[in-house]
């Protein structure tokens, strides 16, 4: 039924899309990433992005389904302590970790989401299990119980907490505000940058992929943002906000959760493509530039025809992409052509 709909939409536009091959894009968070980010931080993150991109590309080349590909890439990002998901998640106001994630299969439009995880090693895999086994969305104690019932890998909560995040929470509490303000602090200088590590206070990880047959999938995972209230749910697990995939495109968004929810960002990219006939790049740019306030959002997206786009309206976004025709990119700040 999905394929029929894609073809119908394509005919509606009066032309057959030429298949452009597989494509993959991943993100490690958009936000106020200072150009004075510590070099070792930057290199570590770039290395991880490169590694995850390679993993995803190899998987696509060996004909793994996009759903499997996005899951395995996000698992890898979750396991890396440099990104705000899984191990390395930022901390709540109580100093704990509450992780959430979402996965969506563009073909069937089945989806799975989880929130409030404290011991599950790979939130994205639990989201996938929820998608396949039960109700769409499980949270907190119920999600943890489900994980144990199904023998999903769990570790003590301390596994996820890193010294950097303890420090970030401390700074956030001292600043006595929830870190949703993305503008650079006025007194920022080299010393401050070293202390605050110059890194964005929020983040997410995500991956979108399309194979040669136009099958699409999206996955997003996060620890949320620093000093968030216990029980706060962001955009990541909300289908249509942080994550979305249908027969046209797959989208994973990152940034200020509250803005992404109200802007139904991921859904809007697909809706603009469908209802206004814009290309992936145009639709994504429209959402990021015109529909969400500056400094609040970034996203990665691929289309059924193998296009990729990675727009953001923040200072930077950790990102990487590759397409079958050989193009690849790993970046943090706007490239010169932006």
């Amino acid at each position, binding site marked *: 039924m999905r394929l029929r709909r894609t073809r119908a939409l394509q005919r509606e536009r009066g032309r057959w899309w030429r298949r452009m091959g597989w494509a993959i894009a991943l993100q490690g968070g958009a936000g106020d990433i200072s150009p004075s980010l510590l070099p070792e931080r930057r290199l570590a993150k770039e290395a991880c992005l490169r590694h995850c991109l390679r993993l995803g590309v190899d998987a696509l080349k060996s004909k793994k389904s996009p759903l499997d590909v996005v899951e395995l890439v996000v698992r890898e990002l979750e396991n890396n302590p440099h990104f705000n998901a899984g191990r390395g998640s930022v901390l709540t106001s109580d100093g704990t970790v509450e992780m959430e994630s979402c996965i969506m299969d563009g073909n069937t439009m089945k989806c799975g989401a989880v929130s409030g995880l404290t011991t599950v090693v790979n939130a994205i895999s639990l989201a996938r299990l929820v998608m396949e086994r*039960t109700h*769409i969305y499980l949270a907190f104690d119920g999600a943890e119980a489900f994980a144990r019932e199904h023998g999903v890998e769990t570790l003590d909560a301390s596994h996820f907490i890193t010294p950097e995040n303890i420090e970030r929470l401390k700074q956030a509490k001292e600043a006595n505000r929830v870190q949703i303000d993305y503008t650079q602090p006025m007194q920022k200088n080299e010393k401050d940058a070293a202390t605050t590590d110059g890194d964005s206070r929020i983040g997410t990880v995500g991956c979108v992929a399309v194979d040669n047959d136009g099958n699409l999938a999206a996955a997003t995972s996060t620890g949320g943002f620093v000093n968030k*209230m216990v029980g*706060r*749910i962001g955009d990541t697990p909300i289908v249509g906000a942080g994550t979305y995939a249908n027969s046209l495109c797959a989208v994973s968004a990152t940034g200020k959760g509250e803005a992404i*929810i109200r802007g139904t960002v991921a859904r809007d990219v697909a809706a603009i493509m469908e209802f206004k006939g814009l290309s992936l790049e145009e639709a994504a740019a429209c959402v990021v530039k015109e529909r969400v306030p500056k400094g609040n959002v970034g996203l990665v997206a691929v289309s059924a025809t193998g296009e990729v786009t990675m727009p953001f309206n923040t200072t930077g976004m950790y990102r990487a992409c590759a397409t079958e025709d050989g193009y690849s990119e790993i970046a943090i700040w706007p490239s010169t052509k932006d």
Partner: protein
Amino acid sequence: MGGWAIAVHGGAGVDPNLPLHRQEEAKQVLARCLNLGISALRSSLPAVDVVELVVRELESDPVFNSGRGSALTEKGTVEMEASIMDGKGRRCGAVSGVTTVKNPVSLARLVMDKSPHSYLAFSGAEDFARLHGVEVVDNDYFITEDNRGMLKLAKEANTIMFDYRIPTVLLDTCGASVENPLQMNGLPISVYAPETVGCVVVDGQGRCAAATSTGGLMNKMCGRIGDSPLIGAGTYACGLCGVSCTGEGEAIIRGTLARDVAAVMEYKGLGLQAAVDFVVKERLDEGQAGMIAVSQNGEVACGFNTNGMFRGFATEDGFIEVGIW
């Protein structure tokens, strides 16, 4: 066009064998809530205040599945969720896993107005409620004998599996058989509690708002979140319209139904009823759901592909209607 308009719902998917007195009871509750909203609109209360007070009234009445009268989890407890959205500025608030707060929709409103976030759940939501002195009661308050009975039946029917849908049987073949073949969310329709309540309003200034509240699915797993608290799925409001949905949660979530109504109006230029019809026809596939909507121009609309939906409408020019089928 113009002027205020209001719509309320008490769930999509109705047992065709529902006894007449139960039907009347439901219609009376809807009418009462509608009239409450109408008075509020006549005294120029803004849309977001009206949807909140109407949904509070629906939550307080045990007839529908929200607040008191909520469906029960597999453990026999109540876990409620709700969301509210103010079309002006598209501000929103949502809560899930609420167990002691008397009016979840008001807690959602508080999240929207008094917290830096949009969505709080479970113990975090409960703590937030206590911090703000919100009225709380024992979980028992929300549980009705009717629903205890329903839970038992649901467990006997041993369902709530994931992909279980059977084609909707035509009403005239149902006959008088006790075993009704109609199903929703995996439950025989006679057991399936009407799900969710909602209200959408456009006020005299053309501002739209929407709110939805529910106890969720009978016999659901603890921790299960449905479509009602998810912005874009069960609830949405923007400058153009306000929408509240009800029915099979999965279908509503993956179809981002509430957002899609607004999106086709905005991006395709469709009118309100045409947008609702489009979404019901094109976005539901095998899923069953219904929705109510209002537009900034004072129109009301509804659409459903279920066999019925508890609903009521009123517009400033005097139109008023309450219905089920």
